[in-house]
């Protein structure tokens, strides 16, 4: 979230889409309700089903799963056509005025400039700014347009937070370049037109791109009738009626947006809309990702995913012949209109990276060995979730650890994951319940003969539950909160850190005794913990925060502060690239300082009444509660809304201050025109994303899901996302309407259950005892199906059997003129659990249905909006 849970109470308008917070985040949902109760705020809910969130909405629209870009693009078009825009915000805080290079082409035919059909990859060199100066008033033959412009989603708020992405060459960017051709760079001085009239300025391109998203087109694609769409568009953009900047609206989403073959672009469309309306950085505004689990925000920050290192540093790739080359590739340089200023905070990347390597390898990381840079693996292809199972299925992966991760249930195409595990040599599962992954060899359909041939050795290690270990979770609002141990693990179970550390130290011992392939990183991984076999999480948390390795003085000479070697760092401004600091994750620097564990704070004071709670726990970055909060003020530094003052410029002190911590350079005067989006090299929000940050286009374009009932009405010859790659094993099958798959299916969780855990929990089992499938009344009527009867849903992959819930909360839709039905399947049941063990389910898995296809930016599978057929079982 750019903002936070409590902050939602400050909003005037909510668009909840791609998420179902009433069911999946009930306790967070009190804050939207507070906004309704105390501000008369309005709530628009757009979802494939009338959910329990929609039950409290002021306006509910039923959308076809996966068509969100069409809807949001329609909103952008509506806002521009009706001048519901935040003009000053657009001009000063986004790249609306930036001019794009000649040769860039919009995707009228579904393709941007630079597409190579052979490799299905874009050459993005034309997706760049033009170098130059002020072009205001110099637009030749520019068409007259309303004044307004753009927006951009910030990297660390997305579900994938894919990092900087300033230059060409993301995690896979090195492929094909061979290190020979330097990737294109952003120009340091960007040409711009403050009148927004230049035909190649971002605003004009944006306008042109979304002109095609008319209310009629929105209706054809999404199934939302034009009049309803217009009602929603008018309501949502009403916060900028007559250019008034006081009101603010928020967008709230979750995995309903990420789990598509264009998920990142859906979120970008939302971010662009919020920039156009001037809602980012403001109390009650923002783009708010509701993460689905307790610590996947933390897992992303801490690089539990293949393509990054902690703090969103990029993984090294083979073109990084040494540390300097790596730093050069990943450290952006400012790119902006010459008179403007850009903080370009990622210019500090060398300090972050060096401090990380010092934390990893301690004394073994020296200047002479490039801070042990070569101890890290170098990657140049996709090693993401679906690839793990694909590559294991193809026999490339021999062993796999699963620490609290039920990969068989998660899918997609669960049967493929089960078959992949059959081919592995070993599987180590650390869990608290018997799960489908550790018992994949007991999956329904495996005969005794086949079982004898499954040669996978499975170790199932009993881990500790949440109450039995301490440590930190990071919530959606970026709050790091420490929890305490309430009781010991039961039986012989152990805490996870002890299990992992012991395994690693045993491996190290083997390498020490026997030698082996490149043992250096294993032998030198720094384990300075009191009990290395069971490191205390507090010690790890302190290492993550970082400390001084030599006596240091504050980089800000005004403070005169000094640190002794060994002391905890107060914040990331202290980090050095000369090996005199270490920090496991620069982003968490400031979380455990000499003043103590900020993450354990329990201060309940909220002096501003805005729900900031500055002394409760700690929020990254540097305890800032609303990101980009410089944008809550006008260019002169005054809050857009004096009633909701977050920060402001204090002329007498010549500094920024206020109720929140400024997410900004504290002494940058408004006249210097530093952009509020300090993590972008431009300093402004990106309506247009230049170069390599996005794989599939600098603006989001609407593509159909991989399995869709119609050809894309915008460009029937380019129905799907052109850069999406399908998997190619015999297990990877994709269905079409011609084959009879013509019902749109989506998957989700219920509020009564949590993924695959609470099926072990009697109190939750009694609330929803068995699996079901939600079927529209009209479809059931046609099938002669009554509620409670069993149905079989079949996709190109497999089938799923459960009882039907016949409901009027899902209605038939007209999609491009064709009657289309949607059904929905909750994901919670597998083949181990209270209901399963009592034979009360068919023991089929919802994710046996879902396709193996991933978003080219975030690599998240398309769990939503695939095709099925449905029949009575």
């Amino acid at each position, binding site marked *: 979230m750019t903002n936070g849970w409590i902050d939602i109470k400050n909003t005037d308008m909510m668009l909840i889409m791609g998420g179902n917070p009433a069911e999946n985040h009930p306790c967070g*949902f009190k804050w939207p*309700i507070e906004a309704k109760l105390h501000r008369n705020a309005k709530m628009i809910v757009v979802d494939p089903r009338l959910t329990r969130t929609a039950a409290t909405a002021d306006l509910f629209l039923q959308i076809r799963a996966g068509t969100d870009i069409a809807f949001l693009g329609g909103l952008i078009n509506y806002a521009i056509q009706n001048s519901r825009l935040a003009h000053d915000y657009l001009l000063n805080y986004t790249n609306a005025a930036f001019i794009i290079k000649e040769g860039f082409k919009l995707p009228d035919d579904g393709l941007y400039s630079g597409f190579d059909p052979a490799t299905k990859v874009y050459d993005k060199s034309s997706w760049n700014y033009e170098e130059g100066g002020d072009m205001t008033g110099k637009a030749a033959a520019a068409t007259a347009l309303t004044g307004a412009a753009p927006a951009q989603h910030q990297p660390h708020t997305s579900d994938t937070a894919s990092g900087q992405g300033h230059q060409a060459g993301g995690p896979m960017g090195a492929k094909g370049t061979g290190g020979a051709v330097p990737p294109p760079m952003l120009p340091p001085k960007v040409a711009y037109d403050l009148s927004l009239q230049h035909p190649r300025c971002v605003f004009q391109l944006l306008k042109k791109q979304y002109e095609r998203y008319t209310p009629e087109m929105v209706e054809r694609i999404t199934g939302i009738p034009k009049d309803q769409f217009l009602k929603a568009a008018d309501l949502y953009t009403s916060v900028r009626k007559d250019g008034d900047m006081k009101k603010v609206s928020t967008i709230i989403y979750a995995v309903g947006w990420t789990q598509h073959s264009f998920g990142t672009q859906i979120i970008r469309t939302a971010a662009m809309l919020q920039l156009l309306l001037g809602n980012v950085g403001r109390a009650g505004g923002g783009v708010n990702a509701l993460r689905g689990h307790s610590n996947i925000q933390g897992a992303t920050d801490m690089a539990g995913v293949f393509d990054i290192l902690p703090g969103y540093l990029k993984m090294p790739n083979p073109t990084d012949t040494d540390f300097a080359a790596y730093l050069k590739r990943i450290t952006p340089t400012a790119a902006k209109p010459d008179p403007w200023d850009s903080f370009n905070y990622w210019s500090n990347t060398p300090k972050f990276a060096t401090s990380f390597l010092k934390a990893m390898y301690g004394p073994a990381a020296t200047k002479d060995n490039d801070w042990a840079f070569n101890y890290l693996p170098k990657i140049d292809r996709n090693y993401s979730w679906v690839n793990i199972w694909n590559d294991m299925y193809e026999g490339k992966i021999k062993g796999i650890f699963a620490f609290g991760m039920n990969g068989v249930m998660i899918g997609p195409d669960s049967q493929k994951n089960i078959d992949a595990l059959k081919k592995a040599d070993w599987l180590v599962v650390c869990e608290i319940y018997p799960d489908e992954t550790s018992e994949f060899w007991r999956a329904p359909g495996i005969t005794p003969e086949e079982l004898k041939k499954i040669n996978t050795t499975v170790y199932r290690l009993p881990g500790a539950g949440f109450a039995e270990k301490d440590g930190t979770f990071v919530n959606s609002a970026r709050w790091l909160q420490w929890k305490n141990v309430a009781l010991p693990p039961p039986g012989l179970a152990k805490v996870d850190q002890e299990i992992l550390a012991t395994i690693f130290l045993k491996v190290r011992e083997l390498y020490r005794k026997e030698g082996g392939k490149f043992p250096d990183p294993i032998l030198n991984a720094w384990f300075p913990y009191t009990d290395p076999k069971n490191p205390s999480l507090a010690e790890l948390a302190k290492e993550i925060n970082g400390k001084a390795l030599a006596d240091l003085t504050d980089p800000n000479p005004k403070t005169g502060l000094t640190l002794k070697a060994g002391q905890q760092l107060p914040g990331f401004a202290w980090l050095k690239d000369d090996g005199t600091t270490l920090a496991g994750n620069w982003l968490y620097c400031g979380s455990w300082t000499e003043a103590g564990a900020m993450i354990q704070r329990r201060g309940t004071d909220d002096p501003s009444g805005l729900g900031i709670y500055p002394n409760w726990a700690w929020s990254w970055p540097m305890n800032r509660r609303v990101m980009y909060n410089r944008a809550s003020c006008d260019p002169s530094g005054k809050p857009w809304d004096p009633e909701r003052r977050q920060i402001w410029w204090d002329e007498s002190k010549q500094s920024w201050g206020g109720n929140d911590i400024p997410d900004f350079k504290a002494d940058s005067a408004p006249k210097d025109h530093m952009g509020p989006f300090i993590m972008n090299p431009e300093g402004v929000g990106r309506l247009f994303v230049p170069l390599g940050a996005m794989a599939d286009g600098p603006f989001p374009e609407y593509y159909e899901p991989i399995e869709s009932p119609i050809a894309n009405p915008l460009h029937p010859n380019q129905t799907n996302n052109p850069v999406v790659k399908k998997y190619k094993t015999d297990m990877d099958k994709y269905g079409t309407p011609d084959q009879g798959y013509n019902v749109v299916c989506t998957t989700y969780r219920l509020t009564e259950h949590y993924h695959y855990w609470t099926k072990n929990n009697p109190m939750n089992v009694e609330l*929803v005892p068995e699996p079901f499938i939600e079927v529209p009344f009209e479809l059931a009527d046609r099938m002669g199906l009554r509620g409670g009867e069993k149905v079989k849903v079949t996709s190109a992959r497999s089938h799923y059997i459960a009882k039907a819930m016949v409901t009027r909360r899902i209605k038939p839709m007209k999609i491009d003129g064709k009657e289309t039905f949607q059904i929905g399947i909750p994901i919670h049941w597998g083949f181990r659990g209270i209901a399963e063990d009592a034979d009360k389910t068919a023991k089929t898995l919802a994710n046996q249905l879902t396709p193996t296809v991933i978003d080219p930016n975030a690599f998240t599978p398309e769990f939503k909006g695939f095709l099925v057929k449905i029949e009575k079982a």
Partner: protein
Amino acid sequence: MSDRKTLQIKQISAHPGPIPGLGVQRDLEVCKLVDTTTCIGCKACEVACVEWNDMPFAETTFDNTYQTMPETRWNFWNLIKFNEHQREDGTIQWLMRKDQCMHCADPGCLRACPADGAIVQYANGIVDFNQENCIGCEFCVSGCPYNIPKFNKETKKVYKCTLCSDRVGQGLEPACIKACPTGCLKFGSKEDMKMIAESRAAQLREHFGYENAGVYDPQSIGGTHVIYVLHDATQPELYGGLPKNPQIPWSYTVWKWLFKPVLGAFSMLGLVGVLLHYVTVGPRRPQPEPPKKED
């Protein structure tokens, strides 16, 4: 220890003598407010109730609804009722209402109960069952206009929501109230709850287009200590059959007038009832063990 203000007894079923402490303590009428317009049907209240009261596992089966079970049970006192209501324009309104004991000001169950001390009403409005004194006659079941008290065939006793009198007695809010994620449940004095409810209903009428929004606090039974804010107070039946004009069966109303003079004698009857109960049913047997789950 316990807070005498919050658990002062006001009435005792079939009890002839004076009520200890009555009139000595200040009255505090408590009330639970249920705002159905902000209820998300998450069932946190159901679980909080089951958990706090250590209820045994309740078998359920899928019944084409999100509703946990058709009605409350002796071991499931708090149930969200789900209703899909089709408006005139064809749009669907998904209504959710928390169903539980209403803690009526004039409790039909208490009026009907012939067993001394089996049902008490505290001055704060909580109507509480004391299973120790219950004779299992089930008169309370038929006396309730909301179909709330439920008979357990094994213990031969009747159970229902206590409004967490144990928690309230210690100065805590009921478990369901505390859990409610959206704050659609509130707990406080009846006076405060009425004011909050009325102002919310006014807000719904003025700002959210619900012309008939209103408060449910039926006067036909003297008001209740659980009140609702409804989107449409003219049609409470839409919310899982909430009666518009709840009535205690006339026989129990008459009964009270008729027998009041001979209440003392009737309490003897109650004792006979206890004896009869023991003779015919026998002593209570322990609860069956929950089914064992295998690893």
